[in-house]
């Protein structure tokens, strides 16, 4: 009887370990700034010609990025 219980417990443990191995951890890194000791930098959109207009800068960069797709250019 005790042998059977021990076998069942061992099987349950193995099953739990096996199932745990199937888990998936998130693979996206949440970057945290380290201990940077140098000078502070300004964002790319901070100065002329964007003067702090982040939306306009992102729009400009996005347009440029899409222009690399010649399939879209050819469709136009």
């Amino acid at each position, binding site marked *: 009887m005790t042998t059977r219980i021990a076998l069942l417990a061992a099987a349950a443990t193995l099953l739990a370990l096996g199932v745990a191995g199937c888990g998936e951890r998130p693979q996206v890194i949440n970057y945290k700034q380290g201990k940077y000791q*140098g000078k502070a930098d300004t964002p790319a959109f901070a100065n002329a010609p964007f003067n702090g207009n982040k939306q306009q800068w992102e729009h400009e960069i996005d347009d440029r990025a899409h222009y*690399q797709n010649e399939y879209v250019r050819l469709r136009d």
Partner: protein
Amino acid sequence: MARMKFLCDAERCIECNSCVTACKQEHDIPWGVNRRRVVTLNDGVPGERSISVACMHCSDAPCMAVCPVDCFYKTEEGVVLHDKDLCIGCGYCFYACPFGAPQFPQTGAFGVRGKMDKCTFCAGGPEPDRSQAEFAKYGRNRLAEGKLPACAEMCSTKALLGGDGEVIANIYRDRVTHRGKGGEVWGWATAYKVPSASGGGAQPGNQAPAPAAPEPAKPTGGTKS
């Protein structure tokens, strides 16, 4: 927020080195320093492949982890930059980098190391944007001008793509779908599956399903007389 990345399509790279030239010219880089270079595998053998390599602006950059003076930082756009005023030229980052991106100018026959120099994704460095000091130390700041890196924009075959990772992944997916091969590689579904609507950044017009595995490639050996 965009996360800037490079992507080089080995099917398209023709080893013309225009990316290398564009980078050198754009940033007035001295002899001996190559922020970007083209690596060819199986050179001279039919089926050779070339790929343009520079700093990949890693999400978890090993250069940042090993720097003893903590001179590296990452911008909001995911560009890895460093402060040359703080760099001591020790070379740890060179050993840590899997791409050989950090470069050290040599001023003598025995390889005296200077401050580390590397690809900045044309984003300058910690000096006033588009100033003379920034250009002298880090090169031109094209991102502050609303432009993408010179190497990617100059690429004649558009093998080298640069920009927001989501956007260039969409472009690459679109391209592979059109040419009908490339989607069979291991990890395609992980790297290039169509992002969910809530994922953000994806452009609906550029979405396309992963292409089906093509027929086995025919042997290319031999030449026609």
